């Protein structure tokens, strides 16, 4: 066949004799054609389902290894005078440390409860601000002051030990 086409010779294709399906299947509830069509459909669906599993698991991101820590030394107290702040990573959690103008120290999981942006401390306004949609939190409690966030920030513990600022999860071992 291929060779004949290559030499340019025409070949008359014989059409198979056609059956009158309606006559042949008269009285039956399902025609042969419908059955074959259905089978092909089912077969196709099964093949697609079989292929989908491996494909999805190939594309699926590998389990990320969240780094959990119990303690982090942020630095010497002298590096963070009252009124300053620092964004840092507590394990894999974005975190925020604030040394308030009144001298108290606070630390939070810096993930905004609205849509998960990382928040920052605004010294001039003494608040915690989320630049994404303008969410504002209280810098001492982490409670929502304004904007769209539905709940406050999760707290971390900030303490001074031997002249160094130490950050811990609020309850030892608890998820921050």
């Amino acid at each position, binding site marked *: 066949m291929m060779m004949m086409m290559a030499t340019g010779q025409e070949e008359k294709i014989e059409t198979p004799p056609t059956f009158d399906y309606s006559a042949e299947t008269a009285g039956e509830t399902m025609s042969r054609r419908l059955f074959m069509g259905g089978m092909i459909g089912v077969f196709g669906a099964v093949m697609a389902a079989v292929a989908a599993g491996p494909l999805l698991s190939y594309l699926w991101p*590998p389990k*990320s290894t969240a780094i959990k820590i119990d303690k982090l030394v942020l630095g010497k107290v002298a590096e963070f005078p009252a009124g300053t702040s620092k964004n840092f990573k507590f394990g894999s959690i*974005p975190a925020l440390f604030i040394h308030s103008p009144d001298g108290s120290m606070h630390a939070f999981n810096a993930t905004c409860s609205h*849509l998960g942006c990382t928040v920052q401390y605004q010294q001039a306004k003494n608040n915690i601000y989320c630049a994404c949609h303008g969410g504002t939190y209280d810098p001492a409690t982490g409670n929502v002051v304004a904007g769209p966030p539905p709940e406050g920030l999760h707290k971390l513990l900030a303490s001074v030990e031997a002249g160094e600022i130490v950050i811990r999860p609020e309850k030892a071992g608890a998820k921050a």
Partner: protein
Amino acid sequence: MAFETFKKMNLLKFGYDWLNQRVPLEAAIKFATKKEVPVHKHSIWYYMGGICMLFVVLQLVTGLLLMVHYVPSYEGAYQSVMAINNKIPFGWLIRSMHSWGANLFIAILVIHMFSTYFMKAYRSPRELTWFSGLGLIGLAMVFGFTGYLLPMDEMAFFATKVGVDVAGEAPFIGELVANFVRGGEEVGQATMNRFFLIHVCALPAALMGALGLHLLLIQIHGISEPEYFKKLSIKKYEKFFPDFIMNDMFVWGGVTLLFLAIVCLNPWPLGPTIDPSAPAPIGIKPEWYFLSQFQVLKLMPSQFLFFEGAHVAMAIIGAAASTMVLIPFLDTGKNPTISKLATIWGVVFLIALGVLTYMGLQV
């Protein structure tokens, strides 16, 4: 073919005949000369689709050129874009053309979409043309979103982070989808790989398919005529080939010149590099074509009736978008009241988009 006969023909005719014996060239030309474009006071909008096509070509060519020097890595992308901007001869031009082109492309798409909307070109038999068009503008927006990350400057990083997090807020499957898109729980190398391959491989392929369908359908149906034009006793037409195509070329030339002027006078900037533990920068904003959606999220209070504000915002955005999908079924042209309502809704939609985008631009 004998050499003697070949000598007798001129080369052009030979080429034409050779092709014509193998593909229906004559039929295609006949089709193009028979095709007519109505001439009326709204005819200018018929050129918008052609301008979209110009931008498709510009984006493909400049994108291909950028890929010669761009490095799709979390660590190296920023450096490579810096080099394209500063070191590689005419790199700044190619990059500016691609970035400006992406934005102007979407702007023209919006104009094309609303001009066909107001001309009611979505009505039968052109529903599929309209849907393929919606698919195309959707693809263009995904192009924009995935492309925005690639330079890996500060805004790119945070806009992507926020954009994907928004998807993560969708009820039930949101978090799964977000992780899938990011390739993990945070924006990183896996995200870059996914965005890069979507941007340079999957989307162009999908665009070609959708655009092919769009253009095929337009050939099948011919250009639509506004209602008032259909009722005129004397209608003016021009031939698609060569008249309309000729005008098209003038439009393409003019737009290209204007485009180059914009690009050269305002080369596209590159922001500072990223610090993943830094907070979202003040003034963070998505690209302008996502601003209206962004603004709805921003305006929504934390609680709305019994629902979380962010969910209500997403529902509003989804409902508004779906009116554009449903419009060919709602306004079929048989009911003049509905037709008028569709026009009013289009105006409201456009004004809302404009006002929200303007609000979004104000920090």
